């Protein structure tokens, strides 16, 4: 097999928390996307019988056709990567991953005789425990027997992001729904310098729900999709929280937070409490401000320090301190180069910065620079990744294309091709 073969049959698999991005190198710049979920239908149901399938789990674009009543959804509709890590004993979640991978590879399997299987590159969280790697390889070994896989490898998502952005030395902050990973990269991920934070977009959703309740929208605060939309449309990141609150209270009309839910007559208006929109963005970057204590006292869950597998996730660490902690675990000579390129990746960094509120509200890159400056790092170059939805998949494709096939998998290095003969 040669680079020529991999230039046709390298296949990327980005198991994101919400979406599964997949496809071969021949797709060009953009992958296929399907929701990272599976549905276990009731085999005694009429719909199941009408659809005439024998599958125990349904994935892909046809999934909605199988959905039955809402009551059974929590048990039957599974989002395996919701928190970035799958529990070892979660059989249903692993079934979904297997079926999604099979679905993706079959979709692109060419009818050509010369096809001997894809070189697949899967990407998972950098804090994934070893059993996740083992299970994903087992799934690919199974698919190899079906003629879909020639060799497989797994890379951490921050490495894929750095590859996609053509930067060989940097710090990648990957922040998604459930958690945030801070990973220094210097041609390789510096594994013993990774810092994991038990805080992500879902925590900002919880705070938004509390704010909605305080403003009289308690009935809407229970709908997760709605809360997320409110967060995305009215939440702001302040340059300085105390100053932003003061300005917002002094100029209520200028800072007023209003959002009309598309397709409905419902309009959210925070009115005199519009200053709370700054709490949402601040909480993502730095939950240690005393103003958040009142929410914790009222029962909002405080991000906790937890251990998942071998990894400690810090709950309340602010992002500036997290970056400094990660970088200072690296060789001293490398540290200045790491600070020079900091990539912010993931939906949790996609914050609006309306021009009329500039200076009070800032974007994620500016906030990160301010946090680092407060710790004596004033030369950091921070970039929010372009096309964050596609970065990881693109990194997988470059990796699969470039790494030679005689570089075999090693459990010490956690890199290389695993062949299934």
């Amino acid at each position, binding site marked *: *097999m*040669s*680079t*020529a*073969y991999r*230039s*046709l049959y390298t296949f990327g698999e980005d198991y994101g928390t919400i979406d599964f991005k997949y496809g071969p*190198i*021949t*797709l*060009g*710049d953009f992958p296929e996307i399907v929701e990272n979920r599976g549905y276990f239908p009731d085999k005694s149901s009429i719909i199941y019988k009408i659809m005439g399938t024998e599958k125990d789990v349904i994935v892909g674009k046809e999934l909605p056709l199988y959905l039955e009543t809402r009551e059974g959804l929590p048990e039957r509709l599974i989002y395996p990567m919701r928190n970035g890590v799958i529990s070892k004993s979660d059989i249903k979640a692993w079934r979904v991953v297997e079926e999604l991978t099979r679905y993706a590879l079959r979709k692109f399997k060419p009818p050509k*005789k*010369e096809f001997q299987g894809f070189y697949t590159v899967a990407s998972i969280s950098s804090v994934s425990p070893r059993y996740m790697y083992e299970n994903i390889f087992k799934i690919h070994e199974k698919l190899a027997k079906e003629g879909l896989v020639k060799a497989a490898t797994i890379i951490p998502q921050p490495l894929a992001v*750095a*590859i*996609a952005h*053509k930067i*060989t*030395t940097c710090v990648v902050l990957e922040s998604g729904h459930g958690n945030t990973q801070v990973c220094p990269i210097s*041609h390789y991920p510096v594994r013993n310098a990774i810092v994991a934070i038990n805080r992500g977009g879902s925590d900002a959703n919880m705070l938004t729900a509390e704010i909605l309740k305080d403003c009289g929208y308690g009935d809407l605060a229970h709908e997760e999709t709605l809360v997320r939309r409110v967060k995305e449309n009215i939440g702001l990141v302040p340059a300085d929280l105390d100053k932003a609150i003061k300005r917002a209270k002094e100029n209520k009309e200028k800072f007023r937070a209003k959002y009309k839910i598309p397709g409905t007559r419902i309009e959210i208006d925070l009115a005199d409490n519009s200053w709370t929109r700054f709490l949402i963005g601040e909480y993502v970057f730095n939950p240690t401000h005393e103003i958040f204590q009142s929410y914790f006292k009222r029962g909002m869950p405080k991000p906790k320090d937890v251990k998942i597998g071998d990894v400690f996730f810090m709950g309340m660490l602010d992002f500036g301190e997290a970056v400094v902690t990660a970088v200072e675990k690296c060789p001293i000579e490398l540290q200045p*180069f790491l600070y*020079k*390129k900091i990539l912010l990746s993931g939906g949790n960094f996609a914050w609006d910065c309306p021009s009329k509120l500039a200076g009070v509200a800032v974007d994620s890159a500016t906030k990160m620079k301010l946090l680092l400056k407060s710790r004596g790092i004033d*030369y950091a*170059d921070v970039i929010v990744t372009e096309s964050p939805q596609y970065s990881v998949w*693109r990194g997988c*494709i*470059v*990796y699969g*294309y*470039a*790494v*030679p096939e*005689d*570089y*075999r998998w090693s459990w010490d290095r956690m*890199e*290389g091709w695993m062949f299934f003969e």
Partner: protein
Amino acid sequence: MSKTIVENLSKFFSKLGFVYVESESTDGKLIFLGNGEKALVSILNEQNLCERNALLNAVLEAYSYTGKIHKAYLAIPKILATILDGEILRRRGLGLLVYTDKEVKEVIPARRFAIEEKISSSEINELKERILNLEETVRKLSRQIDMLTEELLSLRRSARVPVEAPKITQVGIEAEPKLPSFIKDNPWVAVLSKRGKE
């Protein structure tokens, strides 16, 4: 303030190219503008000088304007010129004018002072913005230099590694298809292709 004195002083300064600026002048302190300079004349008369320390106060006050005006003069009646030690004025750069009802004479020329320029807050903000822009430009240039350095190092390393001739497989693979844009010019391709060979 005697109108005659003001007129005589105006005539004196007009010969030097200065114009009397009434709007900035007050009783006893006249302002003249000309040749890109601003001059102050602090006028004392015989009545003023009856007050104790009047002369000393006038000298100190005229001196306090240095930094705000280019030239400072003291103007006293001719009859009192002898009581003043001109050396003190000369050392401080103050000029001395002696006047009568008919004329004004410059006895000690005034030294030219530099005016402390006041900078407005909008000018300061503009300067701050320009500094920020410069810093941003420097950061961008620094990034570009780092990228170019990396590429150069990468190219040098690849030049040392013998390039294998591409293997032709038994199966008929067509000419290499067009690669995605994110592979092109990606330094990681060189880095990753050396995995296992370092």
